[in-house]
């Protein structure tokens, strides 16, 4: 049903998005916790800054990544020399770009669920003998689970569609950085490639619908588990 090239693009897309969202999750969680329940100008400013990837043109994000993580940029050169980690023209770079662009989705979903947690529950846990880590793992994290799950799925679905930042940062290399949207773009560039592009679009749409359905289902499950 799928040609080797198609399945390559499909599985690359899934791998890139998977690494992107799980790589961004710890950061989203950490920033959401830092910002939770603060009502200061600082919070608004930090939130605005952290949401930048969502509102900047993806090509700008891709460009900024290129000048930061490119092999000749100081940070990119350092990572390559000392950790052997290369982002430029590599699928890991595609994951980095996708993760960065979809990070605000996770931040927002987790932040909302953290804000919804009754502060009194933490106090109650404290009077019952729970220390900070105990409270985090046994009260905060389980109650934030619905937000985390919804954030993961939303970011995953959005990440599957990332185009501009990827093509700018890591180019369009079949089998390495050519995810589904890039494969569609390439197909359209070739004479007579419309049929191929249509097939790939079909997969894309099916994947997106599946993602939304899974997000809804998982969010409900998680909310049911915490009784709200």
């Amino acid at each position, binding site marked *: 049903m799928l040609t080797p090239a198609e399945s390559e693009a499909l599985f690359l897309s899934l791998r890139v998005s998977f690494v992107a969202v799980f790589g961004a999750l710890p950061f989203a969680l950490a920033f959401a916790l830092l910002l939770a329940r603060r009502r200061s100008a600082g919070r608004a400013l930090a939130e605005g800054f952290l949401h930048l990837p969502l509102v900047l043109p993806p090509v700008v994000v891709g460009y900024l990544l290129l000048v930061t993580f490119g092999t000749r940029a100081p940070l990119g050169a350092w990572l390559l020399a000392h950790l052997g980690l290369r982002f430029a023209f590599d699928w890991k770079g595609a994951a980095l770009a996708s993760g960065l662009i979809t990070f605000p989705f996770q931040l927002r979903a987790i932040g909302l669920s953290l804000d919804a947690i009754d502060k*009194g*529950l933490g*106090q*109650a*846990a404290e*009077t*019952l*003998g729970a220390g900070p880590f105990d409270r985090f793992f046994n*009260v905060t994290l389980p109650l934030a689970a619905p937000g985390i799950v919804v954030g993961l799925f939303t970011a995953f679905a959005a990440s599957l569609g990332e185009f501009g930042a990827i093509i700018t940062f890591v180019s369009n290399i079949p089998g390495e950085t050519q995810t589904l949207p890039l494969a569609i773009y390439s197909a359209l560039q070739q004479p007579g490639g419309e049929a191929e592009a249509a097939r790939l679009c079909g997969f894309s749409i099916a994947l997106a619908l599946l993602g939304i359905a899974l997000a809804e289902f998982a969010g409900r499950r998680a909310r049911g588990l915490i*009784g709200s």
Partner: protein
Amino acid sequence: MTIDVFLRHEFGNFGLDVSFCIERPGITALFGPSGAGKTTIVNAVAGLFRPREGRIAIGDRVLLDTEAGVCVATRLRRIGYVFQEPRLFPHMSVEDNLRFGWRRTKQPAGTAEFAGIVDMLGLAPLLARRTARLSGGEKSRVALARALLSSPGLLLLDEPLAALDGARKAEILPYFERLRDEAKLPMLYVTHSVEEVSRLADHVIVVREGRVAAQGTAFDLVSDLAFSTLAGTPAYGAVLEASISAQQDSGLTALSFDGGTLLIPRIDRPAGTRLRVRLRAEDIMLAREAPGAISANNVLLATVAAVGATANAAVDIQLRCGGTKLVARITRASQERLGIAPGHALYAIVKSVIVDPRSGPPGAD
């Protein structure tokens, strides 16, 4: 074991400056109007609020001493806290909620004690339930059990009945009475309800505008007109301690108290049993002369100690009957007609006696 509390803090134009000492188990009511600083006081005791200046000690365990730079973390204080809202963990079953504090104590209560508390609060059938499915009264009981199971040295209760309607309150109150009578645990009970104070408290601390305005036993304080003036509430009446003196053939039980005898519908308890008795101000009528043919069983000879302030058409009369203080609420018109003034001897006709089931104040047995 004594509990010493001294706190001083300023919030804008509100200053908190309290100092009190609880010397025995049983319920000490922290009583006063909303905004008097009661919740701030219990939060400081729990360690959820740190005052600028203060000292809190349970026995010789110092929990807070700002001068010495001591401030024990909330989780190490071993103080149970029942909040105004139940604050149950929504992602856990009732049983997991109960075990939350139990698991985290150094010397957890034994399984027998666990079952005992679950039984006392009637929670056995609820253990497997999710907390979202509980009624308001059930939630309150779970919150109370959860706090008790953390083996606290002191239990704080912040208006635990405030969020409940009348019927639910009536459902929970007996559990608190049982707790007061059975647990050898000091409790600090925040309330602004005279009804709860007169029914539950052994000791009362009146808080007004961040200060301790008065303190004493419930028997002394609630029956005093000055208390209601201070509390800004209509006088409740009298709370007194009585003991069963005889069972009469007429189907009545005689109670003796410092000031006379009261007859109440029969209670099957042995002679000598101590009871907490309440005489509400509106249930007492006054007469200048001994009433002859009258259906009331209880007529007490009393002396007028003070005449309270008039509210609407009613006036509260403070009476002394032996060593006991009573309050009667009559109309202003009656007071003028009978010429009631301090020093007069009068007959107090008691229309109704409320008897609370209890064995006696803690430490009295």
